[in-house]
């Protein structure tokens, strides 16, 4: 043992691994096993299932080849959900991300009173369950006694009052904005930390040259925050593809599937329509979309983002 320790004790990982074979095998094997059980197996099984027709209970699954995928190509509800996901993503990228940035900026620039209180308040919803958020907004936006409509009417903006969940033209945006409300704290905290790393002197230099806040944000802050923005875009992308909880609580995809998104469609097809094979095919499509968007993002947006 002593001789082998000295022979391989070269400070590298290989040296370490040879000296501590058991520790290395165990240390690598356990996480691999956990990953295989809880992430690898479900993915593989989902792909497997997508080639079958199965109601979730029958002892026999019927192999149907690519039929589920063929059906998907002509499924109107799939396209509605896909477009809704895209809309949801755009709303999420515009509203919570820019709002989160603005809040972080005004706190850093000391334009607000009690910044740490503001930070806590804005971040709080991130820690809340989306189910609770949904139930809360169900009350706030209730057409009969909801606080929001009452507020609009009392300040003379009664003409803005809508059926927030009932009107198929705006229901999806209502949902996306509620989700954004709960998500704003996330980009805020990222940007707040990011702004702390931007050298203060670059802001001072811009101020001396007469830059206003708009110029400061556009020409000094945002360009130096590119790595943060890249990470936030990724986070938002995954968050919007996972949109599920709010829809389950608030609209269940109604009216006429107009507020459905892919995540909820999978759930509906699998558990309500008992089409597990089709649900699996939808899941695989989501996986492919998420994977390719992430690849594009990593390749394009992140390119050079970490250069200093």
């Amino acid at each position, binding site marked *: 043992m002593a001789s082998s320790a000295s022979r391989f004790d070269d400070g590298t990982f290989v040296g370490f691994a040879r000296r501590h074979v058991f520790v290395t095998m165990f240390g690598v094997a356990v996480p691999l096993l956990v990953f295989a059980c809880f992430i690898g197996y479900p993915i593989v099984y989902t792909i497997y299932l997508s080639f079958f027709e199965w109601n979730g209970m029958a002892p026999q699954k019927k192999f149907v080849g690519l039929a589920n995928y063929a059906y998907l190509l002509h499924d109107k509800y799939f396209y509605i959900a896909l477009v809704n996901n895209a809309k949801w993503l755009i709303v999420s990228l515009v509203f919570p991300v820019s709002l989160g940035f603005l809040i972080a900026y005004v706190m850093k620039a000391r334009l607000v009173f009690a910044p740490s209180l503001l930070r806590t308040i804005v971040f709080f919803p991130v820690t809340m369950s989306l189910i609770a958020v949904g139930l809360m907004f169900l009350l706030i936006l209730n057409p009969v006694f909801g606080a929001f409509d009452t507020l609009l009417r009392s300040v003379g903006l009664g003409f803005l009052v809508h059926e927030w969940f009932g009107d198929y033209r705006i229901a999806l945006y209502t949902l996306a904005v509620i989700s954004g409300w709960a998500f704003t704290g996330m980009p805020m905290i990222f940007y707040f930390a990011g702004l702390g790393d931007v050298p203060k002197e*670059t802001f001072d230099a811009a*101020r*001396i040259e*007469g830059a206003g806040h708009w110029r400061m944000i556009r020409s000094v802050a945002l360009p*130096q925050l590119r790595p943060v923005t890249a990470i936030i875009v990724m986070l938002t992308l995954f968050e919007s593809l996972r949109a599920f909880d709010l829809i389950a609580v608030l609209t269940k995809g109604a009216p006429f599937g107009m507020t459905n998104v892919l995540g909820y469609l999978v759930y509906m097809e699998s558990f309500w329509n008992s089409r597990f094979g089709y649900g699996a095919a939808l899941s695989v499509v989501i996986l492919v979309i998420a994977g390719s968007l992430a690849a594009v993002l990593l390749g394009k947006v992140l390119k050079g983002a970490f250069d200093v």
Partner: protein
Amino acid sequence: MAEVSLKNVEKRYAMVPVLSGLNLDIADGEFTVLVGPSGCGKTTTLNMIAGLESITGGTLRIGARDVTTLPPKDRDIAMVFQSYALFPHMTVRDNIAFGMKIRKTPKAEIETQIRQVAQRLRIDDLLDRLPKALSGGQRQRVALGRALVRRPGVFLMDEPLSNLDAKMRIEARSFLTKMHQEVGTTTVYVTHDQAEAMTMGSKIVVMNGGKIQQAAAPLEVYNRPANQFVAGFIGSPAMNFLRLVYDGNALLDQACRLRIEVPECRRAALAGQQGKTVTLGVRPEHFRILQPGAIPGSDSIAFNVDVVQHLGHEILLDLSAGDHRCIARLPPSDRSKLGDGRLFSIDMDHVHYFNGDSGENLIDYARQQ
């Protein structure tokens, strides 16, 4: 072109005073250096002149205007930061043009200005590079260029050379001095390096503990320090201080039988100090070594040689006598060795006497003249 004047300027952070009662007049075209140890308030002072920090008391005038509450852009100043503060995602050209674009300078005018400044600073072939592709010295010149194109009334510089290596620093020092001679713009320059202050400033402002200790020409500060702090801060190696008791004729330390006769002409100034502690200040170059075998006289002190430092053009000796420690600067011909006991005399025409408690210089040079 503008003069700068601070009247009773003070700065508090949440009621904690950091700077108090700053009074300073900087003449038009003067190169003024703020110098002092780290944390003494130099940057804060400069940032208040720039308008990056609010002034919590007193008034600041630049040119003929009271600018105490004006935003930085309206103060007719430009600043060079210690970290250069270049915009990392902009090319050198865009960095220099940044302010002019904001001020809506015409395109052609911007181009001419950039070319002129780039030529003067020898950065013409770097204009399309990003700051990360520049060396420290080049970045420093770009930062200078960005300040120059503003054509401000006052240049503010916060330790602009401290991120350069020793050789570059000496070069940049004379470069900046030459630049100032050509452009002639009033400059307030911050440094913690007393050698930089001595060589560059036409006026030195020595600060400590949030207060101005002395503001005068470099040689004035060197030869007539207002107090013990200034005396110890300016000059390298630092002035030696011997805490002794004044008996009316001489400064004494009974414990190690030290006795230094005070010249007649200085006794008037020390009249009030009889029986009290007086700090005698002696610069390293004002020790003279006596030949071995010299007779100990009334003005000679016996020191042990603790350390010998050969610097080539001179020798520094670390000396001790009882509790007293001194550094003496001697010509390279000296042959003292470690552990020697040697006799030294002090050039009493050039020593300073400081109040043992307050550190004030006991000689009132203003009244003497």
